[in-house]
């Protein structure tokens, strides 16, 4: 599910449109924090795509939690 990027951060390896995987990843995460509603892009609230700790990149996102 994750890669380490060049800065040692966790990068989601499935891109911007892997909604099921992003939901699965959030279900397994104890640190999920929903972002403000206007920044949600996934239909289910609990998704890494809707998490305040995701930082979007051109290809996907990185998780700001320690790797």
């Amino acid at each position, binding site marked *: 599910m994750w890669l380490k990027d060049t800065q040692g951060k966790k990068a989601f390896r499935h891109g911007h449109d892997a909604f099921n995987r992003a939901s699965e990843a959030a279900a397994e995460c104890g640190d999920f924090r929903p*972002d403000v*509603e*206007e*920044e949600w892009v996934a239909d289910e609230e609990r998704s890494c795509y809707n998490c*305040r*700790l995701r*930082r979007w*990149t051109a290809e996907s996102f990185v998780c700001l939690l320690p790797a």
Partner: protein
Amino acid sequence: MNVLICIDDTDNLESRGTGELATILAEEIERRSWGSSDFVTRHQLLVHPDVPYTSHNSSMCFAADIDLAILDSLIAYAGDFLREESAVGSDPGLCVSVIDQLADPEAVIAFGRSAKEEVLNKKLAYDLATQLGVHLSEHGGTGQGVVGALAGIGLRLSGNDGRMKGWLRIQTHDGLASVGDIMAQTDLGGVRTLDGALLSATEMVEIESKPKAVLLDGKIYMMVSPVTDGGRVRWRTTPRSQLKKF
């Protein structure tokens, strides 16, 4: 007199979102009887390693109808508000544009579109704002948010970018509403398919949780998608996951 007000880069990982600050500003304009405020829209800007942002890169814009005499007061208030309310480590920017006095609307629209595709900087933003007669100011940190604030004005002005902050409150009967009923309960320009077709008032729509609206052709539309899994009606509100391109 119609103005556009846009703010950017006011938050950090712990703070209120920029959208909430925009909403508070919009409400304050009405509370002070300065005028009436319209809905807030969110505009996605370029995500790039060279662009500083917290977790997304979006600006928040709204329109207001105010008296020209209070414009300076509004700008002063909004600037102070951003300085006081923006989060530690943020780089807030404010842009206020009087629509009818905008020297070259196409130039600011082009700036907004560029901000979705390339890395822009403060100098470009300030130069254009001066040229166009638009108020642009920074209120903390590096002030980098001026780029997104000016871009947001252009994108809102384009009428073809962004999602409305919040969601539509629509009363339904067993999860369904006619387009006519939806229109009567909202300020929508219409109910529209992703192909651009407008639904007639008699069409029925299945309303999913927290339906969103998007800005298209200068109006706010609720988007619908065809029901393909044997539902009760032909149309269903388009899921949020399919609206992220707006």
